[in-house]
């Protein structure tokens, strides 16, 4: 034993005798995580969140969350002598006078955009691989909660600098609040402490943005990760991987090194973006006053789909009993998002109700093997993308020589027509891919080598695929549709017959599949 080892041992022993950490560490540091790039998407979100906490803390040192009016006397000449809120003036101060302030602001904003991108991409991975199935439904709901809170948190951050763009966004948010029937105007007065814009809003959302929501985030992220820890990570199908094991690397040292290194890479990419690309140039927007608005006022991308829905809504209002109901804001601003997020949160339960599958799953699905789910995801994604595109309709129109009206009609029709098309096309594609898998297992890989037979005929040589690959392509279960009887054993109609019929039909649609290769099939093909 060298001197160095002796010292290390003494220190470790000292700590262990007082904390009992050794046993716990031994167990947990050896915990195995499967290795796949798509499992790192959630980590991007986690690391962006850490970057947000660090850069956000820096910004709070100088940001003044107040709508008190001040006259700007800073170093940005085009705004000199202009009246503005202290919030806006301090944002300019951070940008132009605080050392590294502009970089930090840009890091904070790019990290926020990246945080939301990573959440969405992670959600898509979880959805399309079926990782939300039992026992992970709660974690799925927590994830949907994080996504929703992320949108709110991002929007509040976008609103804080009190520039012309933020103020315009807040004004639209106020319109959405007011669109709530009956309570809308009361809620608006409550939120703004009186008339819009008032002096209360920025200080209030500041507390929510830097204290309340980050606290909730921390709690939810902790539970999210603890559940992953406790339930163990899912893994992609492959030889040696079962529902009862996890194949991968131990947390220490391999995974810890990879994950730790990845944090610095995420930080690096965020800092790189912030160093080379300007984001939210508040000094160009000018201070917010309700009398001004800019062409091309947009929210950040994670709200863009919502803005797109509002932009495409036809102007429908009803007046009844002295109340106006603005359907053109209520439907796209509250009802449709409400349906979308409720559907998203409840999806694990809906799918298990349709398929009747109540078992635990730790092996992920290949998206093609569950055509209905994949198609449904493609449909929802298409809906959101059409809405998002319409959120930038004016920029797209001027960039590509289109008219705003064409964009609007494309979106209005597209949002109804394209998602069903996406559903059908995706479902067919999945089935085709299943068929291709089947061919691959049965006939092997096309080598690209042509052989000329003595008869003059050309044939392409196929090479059998490896046993491992064949296993991966055939390990999935063949779904069995539910067959709920209309009548019980005595021939009496069961209650809920219509519901059962519907469930049977949905279950049949969910279970559509190309039959996978069986041992029988392989034997047969060996004969010829």
């Amino acid at each position, binding site marked *: 034993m060298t001197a160095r080892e002796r010292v290390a041992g003494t220190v470790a022993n000292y700590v262990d005798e007082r904390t009992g950490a050794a046993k716990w560490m031994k167990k947990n540091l050896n915990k195995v995580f499967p290795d*796949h*790039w*798509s499992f*790192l*998407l959630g980590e*991007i979100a986690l690391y962006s969140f850490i970057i947000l906490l660090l850069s956000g803390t820096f910004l709070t040192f100088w940001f003044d969350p107040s709508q008190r009016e001040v006259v700007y006397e800073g170093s940005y*000449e*085009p*705004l*000199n*002598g202009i009246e503005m809120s202290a919030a806006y003036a301090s944002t300019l101060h951070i*940008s132009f006078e605080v050392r590294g302030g*502009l970089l930090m602001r*840009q890091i904070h904003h*790019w990290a926020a*955009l*990246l945080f939301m*991108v990573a959440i969405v*991409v992670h959600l898509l991975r979880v959805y399309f691989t079926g990782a939300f199935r039992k026992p992970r439904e709660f974690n799925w709901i927590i994830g949907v909660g994080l996504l929703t809170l992320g949108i709110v948190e991002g929007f509040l951050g976008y609103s804080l600098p009190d520039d*012309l*763009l933020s103020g315009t966004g807040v004004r639209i948010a106020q319109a959405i609040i007011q669109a709530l029937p009956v309570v809308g105007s009361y809620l608006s007065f409550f939120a703004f402490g009186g008339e819009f814009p008032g002096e209360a809003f920025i200080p209030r959302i500041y507390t929510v943005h830097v204290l309340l929501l980050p606290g909730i985030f921390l709690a939810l992220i902790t539970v999210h990760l603890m559940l992953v820890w406790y339930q163990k990570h899912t893994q992609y199908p492959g030889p040696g991987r079962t529902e009862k094991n996890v194949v991968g690397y131990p947390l220490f040292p391999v995974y810890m090194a*990879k994950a730790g290194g*990845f944090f610095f*890479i*995420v930080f690096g*990419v965020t800092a790189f*973006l*912030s160093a*080379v*690309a*300007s*984001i*939210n*140039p508040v*000094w*160009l927007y*000018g201070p917010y006053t309700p*009398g*001004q*608005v*800019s*062409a*091309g*006022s*947009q*929210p*950040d*991308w994670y709200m*863009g789909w919502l803005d797109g829905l509002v932009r495409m809504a036809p102007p429908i209002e009803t007046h009844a009993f002295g109340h106006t109901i603005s359907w053109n804001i209520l439907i796209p601003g509250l009802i449709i998002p409400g349906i979308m997020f409720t559907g998203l949160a409840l999806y694990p339960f809906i799918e298990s109700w349709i398929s009747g599958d109540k078992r635990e799953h730790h092996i992920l699905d290949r998206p093609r093997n569950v055509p209905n789910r994949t198609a449904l995801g493609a449909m929802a994604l298409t809906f959101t993308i059409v809405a998002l595109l319409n*959120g*930038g*309709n*004016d*920029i797209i*129109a*001027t960039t590509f020589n289109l*008219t*705003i*009206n064409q964009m609007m009609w494309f979106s209005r029709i597209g949002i109804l027509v394209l998602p069903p098309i996406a559903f059908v096309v995706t479902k067919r594609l999945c089935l085709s891919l299943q068929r291709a898998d089947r061919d691959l297992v049965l006939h092997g890989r096309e080598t*690209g080598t042509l052989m000329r037979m003595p008869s003059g005929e050309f044939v392409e040589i196929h090479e059998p695929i490896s046993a491992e690959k064949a296993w991966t392509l055939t390990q999935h279960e063949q779904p069995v549709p539910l067959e709920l009887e209309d009548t019980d054993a005595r021939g009496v109609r069961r209650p809920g017959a219509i519901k059962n019929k519907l469930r049977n039909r949905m279950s049949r649609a969910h279970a559509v599949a190309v039959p996978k290769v069986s041992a029988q099939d392989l034997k047969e093909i060996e004969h010829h």
Partner: protein
Amino acid sequence: MKYLSRYRRHRAAAPILLLFALFAIGTTFSVASATTTPEQSEFSRSTAIEEGREIFLKGCSSCHGLNLEGSAIAPSLLGVGAASVDFQVGTGRMPVADLSVQIMRKPPVYDEKEVAALAVYVASLAPGPEIPTDASLNYERDGSTAEGGELFRTNCAMCHNFAAQGGALTQGKYAPTLMGVEAKYIAEAMTTGPQSMPVFSDKTLTPEEKLSIIKWVKAVEAEPALGGASLGRVGPVTEGLLVWTLGIGLLIGVAVWLAMKAR
């Protein structure tokens, strides 16, 4: 060729070929669609008005009428003033090439002298706003940048965007960018209100206020891209595009690399 064909089944072969193809198509397109500026023809007449009348009769009267009275497709030019002629012809909007949606700025057909002659001729028949002189356009001396920005955001930004980059209007019309537009033309556009633009008379915006607006526009034009590439100064749309392409693209690339097994 043997060397190349060894790699044709390489994983990266398809993406690299795609990149090559895109690059080739883009280059071909940009070369093929390159335009040349039209040659300017020479005119010379003794008096400006006579010269202007000649040009008008040849180039403008078929739509605007022999006596500037206008027609079904073109407005009367009586009283539009020299400023309007200078703006429309000087920026190449007139004579018009395409009447479909909006008359666009293009390389001018007439040279400076001819434009001046046309302007004098049109103004000689009925008075209207004058072309601002160089002395009256000394925005550097007479304007205030900050006040100009305030006025711009109140009066102009709703169409021309917060940084004067232009924006979309209805039915394919648009407010053009003000980047690279000469001070004279900005002043003339405010006074004469071409196409969809409202007229800002000297009562709405005093001459000093107009100069302030011009000064602010010029300041924005000259302002370096603070904080990195400006991304077009059109707001969050391009930021979202960048984060969804370069941002997450880089990180997914790294994730794939991290998860790769040693071969």
